[in-house]
């Protein structure tokens, strides 16, 4: 047992982080917030070129030939960067929908009673008759509501959990950075125990979510995936909230990025049937 990132996995993680830093920096993020509903096709294609969608396709089929653990690392980075778009649906459609693997075709899918990016996508998987547009709480994710309900795809749940993990890690960093530099009462607020303890809890939730997500990516077991989603939702949602608290009044502004992380975390927490479905799945496993 070597439950650690291999050197290749570390290199992959660092490479994706660099790519996203370059292709989707804070300026790009803010530009996207200013142009709601518009999907950046050039960005999508460069993700395709980098192998984001074809990662798990076998090499003979033009894929990268890697597995679920590597996909989890990729989606963690996407979560960190707050990358917009139906990333999970397109990734899962690679090899099944022509053009998805290369990023030429943007694919979205009905998930429960919701569809993200319905109008911007080229291909929509699932029944969308009667779809009604919502005024999405996340300025970076357009949403429609559909009448029926589609059961959750465990792989989509896992990749979403990986995105939540990325958010959790990012908001922990943001909180710690702010606590180190912001001064009140003549010293950094990070010297105050009340602030220190908020930050410590941010880290603890992130680290337990990390091991749950990585383990689920290794085993691909349904109960492990359900556990990963519960821990990752908690780490992202509560983490973003605590990060906002550490930022004080500034945290409540549109200018600070904290609210974007929180809103995306809320949205992801609603995917795949929500936490209730995962709790019931784990309960059923317990009683089996």
């Amino acid at each position, binding site marked *: 047992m070597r439950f650690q990132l291999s050197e290749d996995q570390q290199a992959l993680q660092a490479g994706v982080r660099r790519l996203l830093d370059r292709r989707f920096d804070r300026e790009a993020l803010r530009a996207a917030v200013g142009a709601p509903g518009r999907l950046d096709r050039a960005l999508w294609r460069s993700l395709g070129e980098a192998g984001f969608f074809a990662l798990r396709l076998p090499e003979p089929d033009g894929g990268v030939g890697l597995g679920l653990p590597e996909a989890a690392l990729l989606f963690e980075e996407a979560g960190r960067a707050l990358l917009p778009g139906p990333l999970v649906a397109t990734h899962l459609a690679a090899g099944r929908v022509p053009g998805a693997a290369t990023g030429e075709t943007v694919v979205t899918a009905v998930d429960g009673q919701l569809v993200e990016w319905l109008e911007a996508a080229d291909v929509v998987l699932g029944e969308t008759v009667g779809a009604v547009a919502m005024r999405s709480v996340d300025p970076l994710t357009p949403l429609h509501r559909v009448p029926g309900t589609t059961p959750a795809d465990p792989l989509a749940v896992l990749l979403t959990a990986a995105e939540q993990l990325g958010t959790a890690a990012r908001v922990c960093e943001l909180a710690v950075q702010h606590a180190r530099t912001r001064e009140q009462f003549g010293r950094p607020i990070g010297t105050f125990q009340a602030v220190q303890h908020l*930050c410590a809890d941010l880290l603890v939730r992130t680290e337990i979510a990390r091991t749950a997500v990585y383990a689920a*990516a290794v085993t691909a077991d349904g109960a492990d995936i*359900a556990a990963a989603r519960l821990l990752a939702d908690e780490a992202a949602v509560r983490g973003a909230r605590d990060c906002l608290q550490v930022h004080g009044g500034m945290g409540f502004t549109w200018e600070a990025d904290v609210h974007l992380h929180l809103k995306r975390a809320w949205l992801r927490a609603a995917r795949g049937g929500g936490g209730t479905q995962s709790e019931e799945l784990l309960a059923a496993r*317990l*009683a089996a």
Partner: protein
Amino acid sequence: MDLSYTAAEEDFRARLREWLAKVLPTLPDRPSPDDWPGRRAYDLGWQRMLHDAGYADVHWDASPTTRLIFLEETERAGAPYVGANFVGLLHAGPTIAAEGTAEQRARWLPPVLRGEEVWCQGFSEPDAGSDLAALRTRARRDGDDYVVSGSKIWTSHAEVADWCELLVRTDPDAPRHRGITWLAMPMDAPGITVRPLRTLAGSAEFAEVFLDEVRVPVANRVGAENDGWRVTMVTLSFERGTAFVGEVVACRRVLRELARAARENGRWDDPVLRRRLGRLEGEFRALWRLTQWNVSVAEAGGGVPGTGASVFKLRYSHARQELYDAAADVLGPDCLDLDRPWVLDRLSSLSYTIAAGTSQIQRTIVAERVLGLPRGR
């Protein structure tokens, strides 16, 4: 990322499983949680069986992964837990192995492994708990002895212990952390009085220890004089890092028992309770993964557990309390009956966020040492 075991590890698991299936049915019944002399004998007997079968050193010499397999298999089979051997096997022993001289290792380690001697931990004092460096128990040098006076508190299993890992102040004028020394004190030395304290669970598992001019040979000092704080940090990293690992497996077994009990008494139909148990199953699965992660880190990094220990301790101690609160919900009114299963466990779970460093202290450690936030005052 790899969660599979090597052929040699799987082989170890299979042999252990076979051995456990053979010997466990021959064990006598466990003495009551109140009867510490009885438990001492029982726990030492179990340790001796492990020793004779070649499993005694699994806590120290084996690889962290092998230790994990040992804990998993013994718990799964319902084998006795370390009990009275807790301090000797899980932190005093490892500290002596890491910091002691060759003679000290030869004197103290084999009897722990053979199940002959029990250790206790004399760190806390009435005015030095979280602020351990405030300890005042004095030791003055007299020839080849230290002469020790003062008092210790919350000393688990003191009544049945042969040895005590004792922190004393050897230089009252030095800065707080600099004047401390780590000693091995024989519990039968003249001048030691042990007064049992009753816990909220009704049992007498810890005690106050009064020390009146107790002579401890200088040869019993582990590490240099006045270097005891550093040695203490080694002890604490073992205490927080490895000591609770096996209990996660136990909690997962309890959860399955709770699900069974709830289905038998109809509580399972309550979706709120069912979902709560489901969430706890997710929590303990994740704690097990965190354990495997920390073990892999330790294996890569050479033995002494790292800062992952505080992260684990914080999360686990609260999860354990939530588990037994859920148990109370499964039991209904029976949760008020001390004769029912889980009720005593619920009471004892209350100590987990206090013993081995409170949650508040762990959070400060995570903030300052792991996240690097500036030190508070």
